[in-house]
């Protein structure tokens, strides 16, 4: 399914989508993304995405639970994800209209 998502399987977007459900630590994020999107994010890919998202203020780390640190979406992260989702929806609608395909 990861291949089916193509460019929408971009790690940062997947992480934001996963955290939209609520705070999660690294392993929970990878499990959620694998389950929901069918994409297995490697540890290096996941933390590269988390670091960039954190630097840009889109996610923030919470106090660590043992050695596992949960991350949550910030208001800016939620706005960014909403904007991306809207753009994806408009593109999907446009594509389906032009292909004259009815949404399932």
């Amino acid at each position: 399914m990861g291949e089916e998502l193509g460019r929408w399987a971009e790690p940062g977007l997947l992480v934001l989508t996963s955290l939209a459900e609520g705070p999660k630590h690294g392993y929970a994020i990878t499990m959620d993304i694998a389950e929901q999107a069918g994409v297995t994010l490697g540890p290096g890919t996941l933390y590269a995405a988390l670091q960039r998202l954190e630097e840009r203020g889109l996610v923030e780390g919470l106090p660590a639970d043992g050695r596992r640190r949960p991350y949550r979406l910030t208001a800016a992260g939620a706005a960014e994800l909403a904007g991306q989702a809207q753009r994806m929806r408009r593109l999907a609608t446009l594509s389906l209209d032009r292909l004259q395909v009815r949404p399932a």
Partner: protein
Amino acid sequence: MSGDPRVVRALVGCYPPQWRHRYGEEYAQLLHDMQVHRRPRLVVDSLLGAARARGALMSERSPLALPVWSAALFTAAGIGFAKLAEDFPGIAATAHTVMVIASAVALLALAVAAAPAAVVLFRGRADGAWKYVAVPVAAAALWYGVVRIAVATAAGHAVHSGPNVAAFAMIVAAGLGVLAATAWAATRVLQRVPVAGPGRLRPVTVTAMAAGMVGATIAVLVWGLRVRLADAAAFDGDQGLMATSFVSSWIAVLIALCAASVLSGVAARRHLTASWRPRLPGA
């Protein structure tokens, strides 16, 4: 982390120290949870992540590295020009003055670009950066020692004699070493400074630096052509650097100035592009 399997410790150890300080423990736990030692694909992914982290650290933490190195090259060329021009007092005075002013603009612009970093350094907020400040001082002291040895070696020999030329070459090589060491130390300090200054300051100052270098390069080109018109014999003679011909020395200085101008121009372009590029989400 000491209780983790060796492969986990090794993979975390591949990341740069600053990264490990922030993410090391939780990353080790993730590698442990994912049973990375049984999944070679994840080992490769972690290694690629470490390489990216090191690359990002180098490129993101030293945006002034290219301007600093171009300034070092420019300074070397400028000293070469000063040495070349000292035998031609009064010739092409206007071009000479323009060269001096343009150089001052270029180096002043770099100083302004680096000023926020200097403020952070003097306020003691750049851990581990002070040791690099000692590098140019130590290099200059070493250079002075080389000069003393070179002067003693060349004493009593004619200007164009082998020992004298060798002594001068030694001084020049040591001087280039001082410039390189200073530029290296400056980039190391800038890598460790946690603030960047006002958003528009760097693009403007780096662009001003590039403009100053281009102006200085054109001034040296004009100066050499004026020397040719004013004193054709000297132009074709051997009054160049290290007893070489004037023309070859002049061209060497011009090439170094052109290279410094191109490097600073590339840096200015990068800074201007970055300052106008909209922020993208984590990719």
